[in-house]
């Protein structure tokens, strides 16, 4: 156990937290839990890998492509998921709609890298590692290595969370978002275009998660088909933190990252997952709506 492991935990926590924020963004106005959320993370990593490693572009055009991909991905997700949900009216329609979306997006990503096997891992674009402490890494708590990329990914997550929080609290659009989340029918009557709120939420959701994939890609070993794994991690984070809250998403993500990384490093590599699964089950029994969430009535 050393400071390097803690920073690694924060880094994973930031990634899970941003996937969790993606979940929350879509869930709030639609009550849909998007099983395709992890695919957006892979999209970000894929863009980073394609532009930086394969086409050797600079960082700025890559970020441009990333944002465009996020917006297009959001529009596509909105279409694929919300069309059947709106037509059906069944409260279970979201399950199969998002499962179908996950299948479609995951196979599209796999097809994009059809003749490539390996991880979507560009070189770190925030170079360098910081050595902390005087002794060799791990000899005491304060001896360890921190990579700049980890710090960068963590910082990106914090900035996005704060921005989102301020947006919700301070702007009139934020109020419209909260109203649409609270009661879509009444919001519609107040002149808020709930449909556009939903569309924007999907765009923000996919973009945020894609940014996480981009910022984390150099260290995160993901393949084109590993989206579902991150869907479950982000899902766990958002549930522990509480659906519908940005603070909860970050807190849940950090908690999962910490738990998993510490257990993996200190106890047993394969025990990490079982601890996280059990922690979620136990946490839900005592905090049925997460640490920061409010109970969802009527769902």
């Amino acid at each position: 156990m050393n400071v390097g492991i803690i920073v690694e935990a924060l880094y994973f926590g930031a990634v899970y937290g941003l996937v969790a924020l993606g979940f929350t963004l879509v869930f709030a106005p639609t009550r849909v839990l998007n099983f395709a959320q992890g695919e957006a993370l892979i999209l970000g990593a894929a863009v980073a890998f394609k532009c930086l490693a394969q086409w050797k572009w600079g960082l700025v055009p890559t970020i441009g492509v990333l944002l465009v991909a996020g917006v297009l991905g959001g529009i596509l997700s909105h279409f694929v998921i919300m069309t059947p949900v709106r037509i059906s009216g069944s409260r279970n329609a979201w399950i199969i709609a998002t499962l179908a979306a996950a299948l479609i997006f995951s196979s599209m990503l796999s097809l994009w890298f059809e003749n490539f096997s390996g991880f979507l891992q560009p070189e770190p674009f925030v170079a360098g590692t910081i050595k902390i402490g005087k002794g060799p890494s791990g000899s005491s708590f304060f001896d360890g290595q921190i990579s700049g990329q980890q710090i960068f990914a963590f910082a990106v997550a914090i900035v996005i969370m704060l921005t989102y929080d301020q947006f919700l609290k301070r702007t009139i659009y934020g109020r419209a978002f909260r109203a649409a989340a609270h009661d879509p029918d009444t919001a519609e009557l107040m002149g808020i275009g709930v449909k556009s709120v939903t569309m924007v939420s999907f765009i923000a959701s996919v973009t945020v998660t894609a940014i996480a994939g981009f910022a984390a890609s150099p260290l995160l070993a993901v393949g084109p088909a590993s989206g579902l794994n991150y869907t479950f991690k982000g899902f766990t984070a958002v549930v522990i933190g509480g659906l519908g809250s940005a603070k909860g998403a970050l807190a849940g993500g950090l908690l999962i990252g910490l738990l998993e990384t510490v257990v993996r490093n200190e106890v047993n590599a394969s025990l990490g997952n079982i601890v996280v699964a059990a922690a979620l089950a136990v946490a839900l029994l005592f905090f049925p709506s997460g640490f920061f969430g409010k109970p969802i009535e009527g769902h």
Partner: protein
Amino acid sequence: MLGRLDLRPKILPIIGIAVLLCWPLLAGQVGFLSPGREYVDLGTSTLVSVMLVYSLNIAMGYAGLLSLMHAGFLGLGGYAAGYFASRQGWPIIAVIAVALVAGAAIGAFSAAISLRATYLYFGIITLSLNNVLDEIAKEWRGVTLGEDGISAIPNRVDVIDGVQTPRGFSQWFPTTPRYLIVLAVTLAVVILHANLIKSRSGRAFQAVRESSDTASALGIRVSNVKITAFALSGAIGALAGVFFAYHRGFINPSIIAASPLVLFTGLLLGGSGTLVGPFVGVVLYAVLEKTLTKQHIIEQHPLYFWLVLGGIIWILLLAVPKGIAGSFQASPLARPFRPKRVTVANDQLRPTSEILSWATSTADGSASREPILVAAGVSKSFGGIKALQGATLSVRPQEIHAIMGPNGCGKSTFVNCITQFLHADEGTITIFGQPAATSPERVAASGVIRVFQVPHLFERVSALENVLTGMHLRARQSVISAMLRLPSFGRDERAMRDEGRQLLRLAGLGDKTDELAANLSHGQKRLLEVVRAVAAHPRILILDEPATGLTSEEVRALGVLVKTLRDGGLTIVLIEHNVGFVMEISDRITVMEQGRVIAVGVPTEIQGSEDVQRAYLGDGDVLAMLGA
């Protein structure tokens, strides 16, 4: 009149069973389905999935419990087969018994720990439990052999597979004993499931799915129903797992993880909460999957398989948003297969005293006018708001007792406290001389049934089914007799249906018996709710603002029904705004204002009371202006 066999709804299921029995023949004879044996095996694995999806249908389709852990139940049965059959050499019957018990136990446990969770959170808890099961399968290597899983599970189902059949015969009918055994088990599961759904227990499941408040008002124990439904669902899921493992010959975590797609596609595309939907959905999925894998392009590029499959599922979701079975049942195509409607003709209507015999008999016996429902000093606060401040009520047998008062005076809170949907901070409530029970379903069981202010009908089933659900407390049919359709079940069910029709006829809904509740007008819905409550054979009936939003004609019909019930021996507590209606039909009236009772008496006394006039119309100046 009612017992005669109606064959029309049975035509399609009989055709389906015939096709399944002849499937090996088809697979052997039709040229493009070759080799035949491969298609028989496809049939076997499809039937296993059918079983699994029926188990999900019980939990999700009927009881409304969002389950994301059915993959876990499948794995439970699969590993039971893998460990006990392959590694311990147990016979299949013992393995099945273990799987059923384990599935039921884990199902009951999962539901019991998440009783308070609403729809989505129930699903999330089940998903996390599923992850725990998945991790156990990966990590408990001594039993499960980890990620590799258990292979070479002996095919104990194929006890007579080794027997040589004449060559020509096996070409012609390339069946395996396994197919026939799995078919028999699956049909048994489907038929028992259908029998259960069309009985007291199945109606209780659906009542809980639609609204747990309504269910408990009718005396249904919501917690018990959830635990029972999920235990049953888990047991059948594990049973499917046993055959899954036997048929495939191996079990491992990744093959289990692949099952949610067929689970949800099968259930939701087929038709969730319908009797044939899961079967249709799974067969459709199997046909899709098989057809796709046979395509040349997919064989060249396997990655396109998932893209195309996802796309097709998505398009089907748009095409049949209610599921195939749901859309079919709502369409004119289904008309020839619907059961015959049975209506009660005028001359078949029995005398009111006979229909309401339970109330009439008790009313005749109790000549005393002692109050049967007494509330004394009831107080209830919500934060700083004192909704009730020492409210009192005394209801005598066989009277229509109205509770009236301006908006926000605490009428509904009072009723919620009496029926234990809310717990009073202070005060005592006595029902039939006993302290009131402490839960809504026990109050209902003690003979007090309430109707809610907002209509709480079960909209997706017929008017008669609504009334039958109301009979939950007094139905005398065990789960076993319902599943096996024993004669005792038939007698009870026929008597209930007969009485249900009579009650509907009594309320003037005789021609709406088989109509979906959702299709009734607002007034008819209110009447149906009263009938459903009466069907529970209450001695006290509490109606919360039944006349709200009704036309004057409908109010009149409601008044006639309420008076008929009173004359039949029921005691009625009526919470109402509509002063004219109250004055016309009540025997006695309690008037409330700001959480207190300000007047009690017969209608003429209340009309003369200055306190009441002030409460309704303000102070004297206004009264003077109105010329009062």
